[in-house]
């Protein structure tokens, strides 16, 4: 036990002093910050300022309604979202008006304009013309506003009283509310849910690959320069294995700690959403288990491969397995309880990342959590047993990589 701690401590101290580790520890949060802050900053700046928008209505029936309703959109601070300009003038031809309006858009005087044209007997063609394809918020908003105005106009033509019309077409806003426990509710935007779930996934992904890489390289180094023999004349293979995994675990915890401090600092500046800490206990459980599982695999493989190149190939293969949950993460968030996702929640290779996602979106049934945790713990146990057997022999085999058949023989040895 004493030796295990010494090995763990040495591994931890030596790795922490490497330049690669320092760079990783600083660069990774920067990437995360870039991913999380930059888009929100971009959206914020475009949303906080008032935009001039035009209305060009060739029918003349909807201009007033549109202007009135668009003027009702206000920022929380009371500033209007839009300044609406009527671009219709009786003196110009239709062509001239369109050209004039287009020029205003191109020159940046207005953000865009809504054009209403009669089409056939009883139909309209409505478009929002602007330079880009439009802001997420603007287009659906304009569509809704126009439909309201359109409906009101039609009802008016049918002789309805204006006060009745208002009541008829009054809108109800739908707020997304996530229910964690009955009675406790939380409002969350879908973007926030996605971000706060994926961030853990990326964290896990990066940490496994990075520290797994470190580990595999250190085992390969010890094998290639025969330090392994001195180590094994001083401790048992199991002590060495456990020490290494523990040391790496400490390294992982240290990383998380540093990142958590950075995150908290940023939280103070409201850069990182609080939602990240939703279900943090359960997230940490899956995080730690997933980390342990993959670390154990890395040690076993590290003892078998003999060169750095082989180690890199292996890391490559494993990253493909790891990236799968990231690829399907959107699907998991949209429908966290479809069969495929539930199956993946029980496979040890994918259960930590998939569960990390599911927890954030919709707390899975308790039995699923318990079962998948048990499977995971059992798999870790099994992996460590297999790994230690392979490790015991693998660390002393030099030169050529063992075949599958030889590995099977190793596993049978006591």
């Amino acid at each position, binding site marked *: 036990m004493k030796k295990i701690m010494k090995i763990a401590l040495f591994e931890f101290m030596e790795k922490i002093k490497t330049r690669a580790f320092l760079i990783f520890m600083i660069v990774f949060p920067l990437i995360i910050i870039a991913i999380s802050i930059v888009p929100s900053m971009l959206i914020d700046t475009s949303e906080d300022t008032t935009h001039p928008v035009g209305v060009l209505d060739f029918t003349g029936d909807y201009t007033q309604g549109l202007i009135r309703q668009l003027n009702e959109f206000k920022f929380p601070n009371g500033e209007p979202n839009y300044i609406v300009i009527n671009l219709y003038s009786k003196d110009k031809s239709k062509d001239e008006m369109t050209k004039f309006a287009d020029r205003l858009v191109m020159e940046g005087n207005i953000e865009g304009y809504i054009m209403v044209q009669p089409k056939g007997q009883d139909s309209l063609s409505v478009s929002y013309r602007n330079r880009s394809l439009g802001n997420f918020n603007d287009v659906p908003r304009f569509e809704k506003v126009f439909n309201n105005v359109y409906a009101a106009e039609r009802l008016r033509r049918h002789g309805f009283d204006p006060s009745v019309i208002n009541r008829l077409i009054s809108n109800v806003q739908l707020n997304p509310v996530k229910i964690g426990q009955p009675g406790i509710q939380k409002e969350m935007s879908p973007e926030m849910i996605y971000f706060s779930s994926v961030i853990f996934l990326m964290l896990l992904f990066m940490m496994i690959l990075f520290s797994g890489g470190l580990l595999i390289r250190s085992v390969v180094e010890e094998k290639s320069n*025969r330090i392994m*023999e001195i180590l094994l*004349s001083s401790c048992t293979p199991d002590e060495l294995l456990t020490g290494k995994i523990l040391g790496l675990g400490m390294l992982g915890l240290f990383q998380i700690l540093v990142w958590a401090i950075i995150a908290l600092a940023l939280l103070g500046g409201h850069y990182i959403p609080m939602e990240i800490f939703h279900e943090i206990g359960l997230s940490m459980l899956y995080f730690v288990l997933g980390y342990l599982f993959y670390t154990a695999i890395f040690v076993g493989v590290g003892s078998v491969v003999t060169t750095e190149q082989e180690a890199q190939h292996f890391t490559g293969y494993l990253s493909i397995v790891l990236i799968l949950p990231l690829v399907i993460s959107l699907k998991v968030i949209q429908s966290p309880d479809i069969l495929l996702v539930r199956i993946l929640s029980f496979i040890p290779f994918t259960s930590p990342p998939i569960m990390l996602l599911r927890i954030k979106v919709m707390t899975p049934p308790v039995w699923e959590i318990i079962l998948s945790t048990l499977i995971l713990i059992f798999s870790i146990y099994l992996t460590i047993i297999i790994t230690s057997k392979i490790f015991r022999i693998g660390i002393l085999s030099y030169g050529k990589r063992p075949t599958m058949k030889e590995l099977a023989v190793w596993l049978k040895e006591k």
Partner: protein
Amino acid sequence: MLKVQNLTKKFSNVVAVSNISFEVLPGRIFGLLGPNGAGKTTTIRMILNIIKPTEGTILFRGKKTGYSFQNLVGYLPEERGLYRKSRVIDVLRYFGELKGLSKSRALEEALRWLRRLDIEIYQARRIEELSKGNQQKIQFITAVIHDPEVLILDEPFSGFDPINQEMVKEIISELVAREKLVLLSTHQMEVAEDLCSNIFLINDGQEVLSGPLSEVKKNFGTDIYRLEFEGDPSLLRSIELAEVIHLNGGSAEVRLKQNALPHEFLKCAVDKLRVSHFSEVEPTLNKIFLQSIKQKSKSSIQGS
């Protein structure tokens, strides 16, 4: 003492070590000798508990060497290597602590040895910044830092210049004087001849010869004699009892033919030449080594 009894190691289809037994005694250096691939390293690994023997036992002070033995043994492997990126002092402390030294003791001993080997100025350097010779010294320290009861040295002098070789020899003889067990494995027979008082010669995993060096030499016997003389060397050649294998002016080495006795040969020689010196040539270990291995392989061919 360290006692190896009927040790055998089989790998899936190769017998690496076959039924060998020997004893390492305190106060003298034991030489485990043999050509490359003879099974020396496998034997050492079994003693160190790195691999398990297929059969046989290893006893230290009458008890089976278990994991508690690990703190009592120091090992200098043949192929040297250390954590290249780490600092000298960190590596030494780590290996010291792994051998059961306390934190402070490990540091103390590391510094003491660095001073002893004249490399204390490098303590804060990274290993890779050191010259090859100094890296070897660091490696040697890792083997002795915990003052082991048993020291196992695999080709200890390769990579050292003559001055450092002397330094290492001095340290080894100090340990021997303090009744430590020293096992030295080498294929350099001159080194073994110089240092070892007991030898065990192994080839193809099997014992070829063993015993105290002087006895081994005596038992091996000799039929080679050195002769110093004045007179016509061709007269020497005419003696039928022996064959001249080496001739240099007034000095010659001859090999007696079978059944010929040295004094008969000397009688003939004295008749023909003025002999000033006649002596038995003690076989070098190298000679014994080569000849025994040749004989052994010959007999095994005949046997099969």
